[in-house]
């Protein structure tokens, strides 16, 4: 929007059927964080599309980014109904805001139908108006669990419990440095009071140990855990449920940046993020990144970063942005403040190592290629693998449809290879979304 307002020609590529991403899920959600409503954002955006001729391409996936002359070539394909529809777009500058997805940890039974990510459950109810089950448990760690439970409860869902592995009250200690994020704290308070009204237990320092069921989820076993997430003996509890919405923070979608060799960093949540400067510029000239992909931080931060990114894009094209210097300065200061609050949240809701002991030999670590924890461990102990790549080549873990998006960090952790280098190596994906070879071939052969 900043780019279009400043007189640049802009193309917007969105994989969804409507703009707004996972936060807004195409207007179905009345609110997305504090501040601007979707309706207001959408009105402003639609106005610009009409007035400034933004080339809006919905239901379109960017699968590859390449440097080309003094800019980039972005390759796209259609949605799953039209995946043969490939196209390429040239650009002086690219702003990537590819978001994030729930980080998963494997546990016995996690492949049973009915076990899904928190984001998946939220998408079902916010995007399609469908509840994931009749007795739902929300579990994992982080404030997002509360947002998921809130969305489910608001839609009339029966949430049996929210199972949080960390101690949320630690936020008071960590957030002191970043206190003026009042809107955020108000959101959390609203979520917690909604749980209390519906008498939904918020079980702190509890963790899902396993899921049970024949061919679908029937129950889960949870335990109280210590600060390292090791279970406290004698505290096992069985909760009957037909849906489990689970997530341990998020993993940023960094694929396109990785393809052109942009520098990565390890975020305060332990996950990978694209390294950017105070104008959202990556290490590759002309490639700008905003939102979760530069470090998990939530909707308000993402929106602010988007504005700053727009300014950087305009400047890279040799124009002056429509925003004043003081507005930009205010924006970058707000970004820093919200980033500080995100860091406090990550310090409050970290990943602790106790989960690893629950991953028994039979548990699948890589769901796509159906690789068990035993095979992954054998690759190290019996076959002598010394790095993540060798484990992948020996076991096929990470070689399936998702290209290791779900399992690469956990395979690293189970093998003791969880270094920054390994995380970065495991995130390299030359093709970000599967494309039919025939589609690429016919595209190349057409004159």
């Amino acid at each position: 929007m900043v780019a279009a307002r400043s007189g640049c020609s802009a193309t917007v590529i969105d994989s969804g059927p409507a703009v707004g991403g996972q936060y807004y899920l195409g207007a179905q959600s009345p609110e997305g964080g504090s501040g601007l409503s979707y309706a207001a954002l959408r009105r402003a955006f639609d106005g610009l599309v009409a007035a400034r001729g933004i080339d809006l391409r919905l239901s379109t996936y960017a699968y590859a980014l390449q440097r080309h002359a003094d800019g980039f070539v972005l390759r796209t394909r259609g949605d799953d109904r039209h995946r043969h529809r490939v196209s390429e777009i040239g650009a002086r500058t690219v702003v990537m805001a590819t978001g994030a997805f729930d980080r998963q940890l494997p546990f016995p039974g996690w492949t049973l139908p009915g076990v899904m990510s928190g984001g998946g459950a939220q998408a079902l109810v916010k995007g399609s108006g469908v509840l994931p089950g009749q007795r739902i448990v929300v579990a994992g760690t982080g404030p997002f669990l509360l947002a998921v439970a809130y969305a489910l409860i608001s839609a009339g869902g029966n949430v049996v419990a929210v199972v949080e592995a960390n101690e949320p009250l630690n936020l008071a200690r960590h957030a002191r440095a970043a206190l003026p994020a009042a809107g955020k704290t108000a959101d959390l308070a609203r979520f917690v009071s909604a749980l209390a009204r519906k008498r939904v237990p918020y079980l702190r320092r509890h963790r899902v140990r396993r899921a049970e069921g024949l061919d679908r989820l029937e129950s889960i076993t949870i335990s109280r855990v210590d600060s390292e997430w090791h279970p406290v003996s004698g505290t096992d509890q069985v909760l009957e449920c037909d849906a489990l919405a689970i997530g341990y923070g998020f993993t940023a979608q960094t694929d396109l940046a990785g393809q052109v060799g942009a520098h990565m960093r390890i975020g305060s949540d332990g996950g990978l993020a694209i390294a950017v400067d105070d104008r959202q510029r990556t290490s590759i000239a002309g490639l700008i990144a905003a939102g979760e992909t530069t470090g998990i931080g939530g909707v308000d931060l993402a929106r602010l970063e988007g504005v700053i990114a727009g300014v950087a894009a305009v400047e890279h094209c040799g124009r002056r942005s429509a925003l004043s210097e003081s507005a930009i300065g205010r924006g970058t200061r707000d970004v820093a403040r919200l980033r500080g609050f995100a860091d406090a949240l990550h310090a409050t809701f970290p990943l602790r190592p106790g989960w690893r002991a629950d991953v028994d030999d039979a548990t699948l670590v890589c769901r796509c290629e159906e690789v068990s924890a035993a095979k992954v461990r054998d690759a190290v102990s019996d076959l002598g693998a010394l790095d993540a790549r060798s484990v992948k080549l020996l076991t096929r873990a990470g070689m399936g449809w998702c290209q290791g998006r779900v399992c690469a960090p956990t395979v690293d952790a189970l093998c003791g290879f969880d270094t920054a280098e390994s995380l970065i190596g495991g995130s390299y994906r030359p093709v970000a979304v599967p494309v039919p070879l025939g589609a690429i071939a016919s595209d190349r052969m057409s004159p």
Partner: protein
Amino acid sequence: MSADASKSSGSVSPTVDFTFDGTPYRVPEGQTVAAALISHGVVSWRHTRVGEQPRGILCGIGVCFDCLITLNGQPNVRACVTRIETGDVVCSQEGCGFGD
């Protein structure tokens, strides 16, 4: 299991008719294939290649490819991000979906 689907005042919301493994279903317009099936109590629509285990949705936002389904004869369509349309013939998927 529908959550307040028809909140809009009075007007009859448009619906979509499709079949899943030969059985006809009707859902409100705008749902994903996964949501349409889950709203009818179907939580799994694929068996894996190796262990022949049932799978449904995991990430639910198009990243993990666990929810693959055969749509109008085309295998490996993500049920979680593909909107259901009238006349769709949806079939559960065995293995890679090409009948090997």
